[in-house]
């Protein structure tokens, strides 16, 4: 915990102005940082068929 707090302090002063960090925190408003299994899975394929001209 002490180590985590130290890291947190270091990160705070080094990257707290980082827009993404702030954005990340804003987006976690009143949420815990624990993840559940919410997932998004997507896949796609393209197939191009070639033939000899007739």
């Amino acid at each position: 915990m002490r180590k985590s707090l130290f890291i947190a302090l270091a990160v705070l002063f080094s990257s707290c102005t980082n827009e993404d960090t702030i954005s990340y925190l804003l987006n976690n408003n009143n949420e815990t940082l624990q993840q559940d299994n919410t997932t998004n899975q997507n896949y796609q394929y393209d197939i191009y068929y070639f033939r000899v001209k007739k």
Partner: protein
Amino acid sequence: MRTTLQQISAAALSIMIGLSFSGCSNNDEPASNNGNENEVRFEARADIALSETEAQLAKQSVDFSIRLLQSANKTIAGNEQIALSPLSASMALSMLNNGAANETQEELMESLGLSGFSVEDVNAFSKRLMLELNDLDNTSTISTANSVWLNEGFTPKKSFTGTLTENFDAEVKVKDFSEAKTVDLINEWCEEKTNGCIQDILKELSSEERMLLINALYFKAIWNSPFRKTEEGTFTTFQGEQQEASFMHKDETRFLYSESETFEMAEIQYGNNAFGFTVLLPKEGVGIDECIERLSGEEWLEAVEAMKSTLLNLKLPKFKVGRTDNLTNALKEMGIVKAFSKNADFTSLSDEELTLSTVLQGNSISVDENGTEAAAVTIITAPTSSNEVNPQPIDFHADRPFLYFIKEKSTNVILFMGKIGKI
């Protein structure tokens, strides 16, 4: 003043506590650690640093994406739902571009919005995207795979296969298309490259085909903040019918948000924010097809760049779309005509007189929440912006037809997009 200091202190303490658990660190620890499989550490996001040429190519890719959506919406049967991958389509067309020559190539470059760029620039940009997209978020998985399947007896030019191997990491395989096991081999390749998701893409293969060019793209990610509430509700379809649906929702929560004359846009972020799920919701009274028709790449980019952290009451239906479409007509609609005709010029690919016969695209997207088991680590209270005193949340309810875009933050390259006109 004291109150302000207290607010700042409280916010700073929240940030410190949050960061101590959120792990905005640059270490190489895996996403799950501390002996708790449900805990995820997001590593800090980094931009893909683009050169001026690459930035222009990225901008053109957005324009291509919107035009592809418009063409698909016009030409695909059963267009109440559309699922496309512009990244994959443009990557496959870029591979094809290397085999095209003269007017066929000019037409391809123009349709991709790449007139004025060299084929080498396009190849190099595709290579960078393939290499870097997968390293942006330690909690997301992106796999891109390309392959060229040659019917035995067909000999492509070495310069063509060499370019595809060098720039697109394409595997080149020679098989007898008249043998049934070739279909199995191609299906196995696709299955392997998409984590088992794509199975049996081919049922049969005509020995008339001389070559197949296949691109596969797989993306899996977690929300950076999970939805914890789901409720049943009504979705009004594009035909005005009422349909029951399960809505994930978050109230009084900050999301990136913007609005234009005809639509609102909100973004739900994945993992460390490198990728986002952007929902484009036409304003009441604006039809989804009208919205698609009026949309341009420029307007889409303006809306994305205008998005600001805003308090929303957001509702999004869980949905799953899986479909295979013949994109031939959509590509023709975009101006790629010669490649499909007797006038096709693929002399950079082979000395044989080739023409493109068909283009199929299969796509599956699933947006939902699968699990709920999670133990609390800590709670973050978001600091309040100085110019927002008790802001009223805006309702953003995707309970009518909407468009979605899964995009990368620094380039705005669209990986997947679609239209949900019904659930």
